[in-house]
């Protein structure tokens, strides 16, 4: 049986040592350069984090369409709204802890309620931000953005998907939040892997349980499914980069097909992808669900690997969560 969904067009050697690594933030920067070439309305704003958000090259090539906002994220979000009302497609770029972290009200009122066509790129999400410590590790951004009417929330899984998400955001009319990360992570999708706002993609077929993951946790979810296969469990893996709108159809189908769900995200359990999936399933097809994510705590300084281990985000944690979800199928 072919367990990897061929329609997902993942890399040939999914678990090989030759899997390349790149940071998802690179995909954001690459997409902006590509968009700028064809769309003169694309404008980039940065809050003193131009290199870190990978918008430096854009600022050099298109200085007339680049706005250095300084360390002033609230004004940056408001200016973006004003630019959008005049027909521009502004990309607001910073670390997610600052934007949307400290300009939430501006995003709520000036952007979402006003339906301003603004895109917000939040970098350095998750524990993989590493040594900078908890202040700079965004673990609440999905929750903050998901509750806002009119907002689309995207959490792509690798550099290629981040590029696609950024381009899709520009094409979408309305506010979009895209979260990405600092650290280099495996590049395992390809240009042919489908991406669409509102759609999840089954990366691996399975019948005993389904892991629904986003962002940096999708690759560990695939690794976990491989380990579980060795234990005799057939586990589906669903990449759900579109957290809002969420793909109700695919999520309900995965619950019906497997009867047990595990959600994985580098984010607080409260308010993230797991909550979004639970909202879908509780109303339509309730099955046992386990949550892999950060459990109501802040992070700290450390190497990404160490932090994932300490805060419960490793392949091993996912394997245990799946085993538990499967065991609960009989009801407890």
């Amino acid at each position, binding site marked *: 049986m072919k367990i990897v969904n061929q329609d997902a067009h993942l890399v040939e050697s999914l678990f090989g040592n030759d899997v390349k690594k790149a940071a998802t933030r690179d995909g954001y920067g690459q997409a902006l350069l590509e968009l700028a070439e064809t769309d003169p309305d694309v404008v980039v704003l940065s809050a003193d984090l131009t290199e870190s958000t990978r918008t430096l090259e854009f600022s050099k090539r298109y200085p007339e369409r680049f706005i250095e906002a300084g360390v002033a994220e*609230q*004004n940056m979000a408001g200016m973006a709204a*004003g630019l959008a009302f*005049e027909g521009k497609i502004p990309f607001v770029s910073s670390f997610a802890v600052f934007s949307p972290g400290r300009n939430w009200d501006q995003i709520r*009122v*000036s952007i979402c*309620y*006003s339906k301003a066509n603004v895109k917000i790129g939040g970098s350095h999400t998750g524990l993989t931000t590493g040594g900078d410590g908890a202040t700079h590790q965004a673990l609440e951004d999905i929750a903050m953005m998901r509750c806002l009417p009119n907002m689309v929330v995207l959490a792509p899984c690798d550099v290629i998907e981040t590029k696609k998400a950024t381009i899709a955001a520009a094409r979408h009319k309305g506010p979009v939040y895209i979260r990405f990360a600092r650290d280099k992570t495996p590049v395992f999708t390809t240009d042919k892997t489908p991406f669409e706002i509102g759609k999840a993609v089954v990366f691996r077929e399975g019948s005993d349980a389904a892991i629904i993951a986003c962002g940096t946790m999708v690759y560990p979810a695939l690794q976990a499914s491989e380990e579980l296969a060795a234990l005799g469990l057939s586990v589906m893996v669903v990449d759900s980069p579109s957290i809002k709108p969420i793909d109700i159809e695919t999520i309900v189908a995965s619950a019906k097909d497997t009867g047990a769900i595990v959600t994985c995200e580098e984010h607080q359990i409260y308010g993230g992808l797991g909550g979004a999936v639970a909202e879908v399933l509780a109303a339509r097809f309730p099955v046992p669900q386990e949550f892999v994510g950060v459990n109501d705590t802040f992070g700290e300084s450390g190497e990404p690997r160490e932090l994932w281990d300490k805060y419960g985000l490793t392949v091993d944690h996912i394997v245990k969560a799946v085993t538990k979800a499967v065991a609960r199928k009989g009801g407890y």
Partner: protein
Amino acid sequence: MLTVSDLDILELEAMANTIRQDIIRMLVSAGSGHAGGPLGMAEVFTALYFRVMRHNPDNPDWEERDRLVLSNGHICAVRYAAMARSGYFPVDELLTYRKIDSRLQGHPHNLSLPGLENTGGPLGQGLSQAIGRCLAARMDDKDYRVYCAMSDGEHDEGQTWEALMFAGNHKLRNLTTLLDRNNIQIDGHTEDIFPLEPLRAKYEAVKWHVIEIDGHNIRQIIEACGEAKAVYEKPTAIICHTIPGKGVDYMENEPEWHGKAPSAEMGERALEQLHAEGERIRNGIAKLRG
């Protein structure tokens, strides 16, 4: 410089008086809302809508129009009244203000009513949006002007200062703010709650051109907006010294009237005073016309 005759000024004063009466009727009908700020800014909004701004009520989205961003959205009653009186929508609709299914939200929503440039209410957000529009005009080589009406109280907000520094540094000469310096905020007088002075010096320090005027003197408002157009290399702040609750004796300068509506009976008293003032203005017009 614009030439404005004494007769023009009196006619604009008569319009400001009409707008004040509209505001009182709206507040009484709604049973809630803000009185002080809207009454204090009646001359400023009259001057903007009836003299200063390039706009077309029949084509609210006209690309070449001047933009008016209202940052302190709670004074929207004065904007709604000025818009209705200049032909954006029927005057009767003013009485739907703050009611269910109305286009006239308690704090203005850009998508609810054509001609509103922004959503406003949470203080400090308007100037940033105005700046975004100025930047777009610069990129696209457009010559529309962006006006931003602001309150003094919202200078407590950090975002206001982020925006002021940005605009000054970027020499946004197409930007003019009209600052309602009425010295009150909800909890009392600004200089007791969160002192702002020396306000002019602060603006000048962040590279703005500053004009201080009597915000009830329509000629001064028009001339200041004219001067702002002539200032290159800097955005202009017109500090409009106003009396909150202007025209209604029991509201004038009283912080308690910042955010409340008069009862029907108090509203009648207010309208009597405003009618009398309107009568005086009309007599003046008749005299000038001979």
